């Protein structure tokens, strides 16, 4: 960005940072700078940098000094020290979770260093509400090139050559998809951007739309040109109000500058884009359900063929692409298919964006070339697990995906290899868990999600998943039977076979992969009535350790159901019949006492009634004598 300012402060105003009051921080900065009469500083905002966990984030130019976890109280010091005295504020630097060193510069942070940002190229570097910022970074050049120099067939050929595959989950070759639709004879065709982002635990598409909405619009317009569509829809989750707002602003700006609308850039090509907000139905991420929803109907999938390319929205040829797929298109047009096809693996070209979350140190958005191993993503970029804990599993692809164990860490990530291991690439959710997550519980979590979201059309998807869910609930509650695992496997097959759409077809995946890789955990629940992760409520107990309790009474006050008894200086006791296993007592017991413990499959010896602190040791040793 050209400016004559000595300093530019970019505050992140993505959903994550806004929740940390970044907007107020920006206003305070502007106020302070005005108050000090400084005219060499510009304050601006960007969309999501993808490192939300460290937010609110600011980048200060020159040199891209990276500040983390800002609060309003840091504003004065930033202005005084960094801007007025030229001394960056060290305590706000990012602290590397492994080396514990403070790192001042954006480019030196491991989280970013190993990434290759193509889809996310502009995220965090431009003001998403200013089209000028996008244009400055080659924005709309690809559209100009396409309209000025290329036929629709040439565009399709270029995308085919690049090897780009759909980033919405299934990985279908994008060029081929466009070709199917291009070939259809019809005066009306539609181009749809799938921004429904249904995976409950992923935010790749949200971040892109919040941080770089124009790239989605540009990609979509190029796609529309290629297939010959005059009208387009962006179908976006209603849970993303900020993304909706930024998209609408961007569309208006784009139309004002003639990048969409009638006779784009003086050509014959016209294209209009509508924004439709979803209404909270996961199944509407499925293409045919999505189209039914745009038509104002219940979002129920229908059988294919006919494929959307032949008969889609209102019966017209339609192409549907994911946000990330479309965001990649302008880069491929600008840099060429040859450049793009050199990135990635044999069959999976380009980069993949993941929302790396769960028990990971550096939680956030990660873009890496296909073929990088899970280990590199989780350890080199993600900084390993929180608190240096041991890795247990990684879940890819949300409710349609699978859980992979530590033995899969060296697996290079691409469509084929993840599928072979039982997981899927999915849309980009990547959730890392440690020993505190119960794999049976996690499988149940996903299955109850899909069960709830099943549109109900297919019996196996509706009832089969319900049966599976009941079995999982039994296992979790300690009522599992030995034959349950086989029964689950059998039902899984039936659900896969008897479902019309991929919601049902992939619903058993989380169960299948957890049985495949964590069967011992199922068996512990069934045979020993024990939850190794200490999660399943019916199988765990909380105890106050009599040799550690100092009778401070903090747990007693924190117990919501008065299950704890004991006066000051007395060893406290939990009434197991009253306890609802909320875990508060474990949280609040002071670390120096560490007197509350959680166990599964065992009973601890504790006094029946509160007794004086210090008197337990004796009774125990007496018993032993």
């Amino acid at each position: 960005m050209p400016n004559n300012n000595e300093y530019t402060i970019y505050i992140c105003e993505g959903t994550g940072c806004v929740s940390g009051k970044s907007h107020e921080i920006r206003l305070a900065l502007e106020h302070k700078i005005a108050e000090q009469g400084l005219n060499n500083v510009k304050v601006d905002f960007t969309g999501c940098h993808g490192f939300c966990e460290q937010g609110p984030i600011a980048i200060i130019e020159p040199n891209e000094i990276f500040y983390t976890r800002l609060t309003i109280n840091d504003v004065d010091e930033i202005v005084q020290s960094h801007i007025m005295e030229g001394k960056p504020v060290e305590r706000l630097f990012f602290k590397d979770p492994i080396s514990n060193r403070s790192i001042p510069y954006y480019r030196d942070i491991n989280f970013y260093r190993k990434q290759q940002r193509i889809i996310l190229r502009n995220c965090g570097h431009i003001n998403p509400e200013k089209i000028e910022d996008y244009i400055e970074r080659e924005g709309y050049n690809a559209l100009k090139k396409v309209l000025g120099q290329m036929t629709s067939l040439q565009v399709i050929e270029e995308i085919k050559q690049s090897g780009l595959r759909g980033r919405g989950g299934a990985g279908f070759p994008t060029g081929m998809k466009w070709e199917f639709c291009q070939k259809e004879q019809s005066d009306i065709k539609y181009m749809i951007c799938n921004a429904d982002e249904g995976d409950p635990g992923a935010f790749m598409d949200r971040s892109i739309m919040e941080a770089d909405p124009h790239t989605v619009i540009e990609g979509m317009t190029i796609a529309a040109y290629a297939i010959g569509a005059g009208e387009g829809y962006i179908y976006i989750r209603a849970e993303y109000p900020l993304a909706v707002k930024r998209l609408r602003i961007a569309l208006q700006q784009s139309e004002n500058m003639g990048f969409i609308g009638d006779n784009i850039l003086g050509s014959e090509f016209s294209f209009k884009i509508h924004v439709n907000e979803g209404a909270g139905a996961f199944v509407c991420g499925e293409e045919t359900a999505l189209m039914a929803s745009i038509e104002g109907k219940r979002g129920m999938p229908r059988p294919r063929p006919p494929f959307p390319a032949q008969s889609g929205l209102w019966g017209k040829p339609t192409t549907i692409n994911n946000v990330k797929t479309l965001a990649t298109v302008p880069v491929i047009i600008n840099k060429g298919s040859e450049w793009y096809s050199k990135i990635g693996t044999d069959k999976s070209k380009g980069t993949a964006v993941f929302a790396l979350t769960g028990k990971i140190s550096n939680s956030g958005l990660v873009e890496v070339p296909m073929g990088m191993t899970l280990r590199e993503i989780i350890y080199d970029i993600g900084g390993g697990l929180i608190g240096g804990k041991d890795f247990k599993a990684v879940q890819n692809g949300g409710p349609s995906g699978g859980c992979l164990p530590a033995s899969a860490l060296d697996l290079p990530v691409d469509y084929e290899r993840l599928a072979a291991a039982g997981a899927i690439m999915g849309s980009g959710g990547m959730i890392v868990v440690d020993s505190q997550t119960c794999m049976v519980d996690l499988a149940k979590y996903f299955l109850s999600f899909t069960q709830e979201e099943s549109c109900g059309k297919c019996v196996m998807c509706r009832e089969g998943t319900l049966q599976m869910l009941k079995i999982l609930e039994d296992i979790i509650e300690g009522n599992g039977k030995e034959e349950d695992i086989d029964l689950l496997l059998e039902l899984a097959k039936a659900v896969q076979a008897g479902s019309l759409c991929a919601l049902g077809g992939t619903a058993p995946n989380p169960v299948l992969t957890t049985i495949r890789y964590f069967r011992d955990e199922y068996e512990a629940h069934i045979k020993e009535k024990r939850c190794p992760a200490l999660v399943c409520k019916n199988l765990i107990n909380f105890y106050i350790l009599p040799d550690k309790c100092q009778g401070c009474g903090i747990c007693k006050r924190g117990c919501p159901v008065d299950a704890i008894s004991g006066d000051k200086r007395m060893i406290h006791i939990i009434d197991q019949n009253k306890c609802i296993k909320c875990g508060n007592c474990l949280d609040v017991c002071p670390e120096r006492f560490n007197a509350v413990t959680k166990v599964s499959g065992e009973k601890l010896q504790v006094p029946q009634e509160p007794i004086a602190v210090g008197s337990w040791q004796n009774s125990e040793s007496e018993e032993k004598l």
Partner: protein
Amino acid sequence: MATTISSVLNQHSRDRRNLIPILQKVQEKEKYLSPASISEISGYVGISENDVYSVASFYSQFRFTKPGEHTVKVCLGTACHVRGGARVLETVERELKIKPGETTADGKYSLETVACIGACALAPTMVLDNEVQRSMTPQKVVDLLKSRNKAENDAK
């Protein structure tokens, strides 16, 4: 006859494709879809009330009862789930003495669950009115609700 929702209806053509956007706009204005609104929408778009209801009830966004003054939405997405979302929900349930989908007797709070608001890196999250609350713990839930109640009482 002008009703409270006619201003919303008039912004859309009488076309089935506008049904969901209309339902959304009406709910935004009225906070829920009352039988009267459904009936008016049905008349405006020209589809039977049954049909309007059948579409609306398919989507979890739509409510058919009046929500409380404030809405608490607890995220039960995967990232929040593995970082203790269920405990956050249990705490809210206990504090407000309601289950998801319900409203407190005094009409103050409604409780809902949501599957990911896209702030997974800050898990577990919840949304109080339109503000995202990050890295929640049972204790933070208790404190937050207390401070809100106190602020409201002070304001009175």
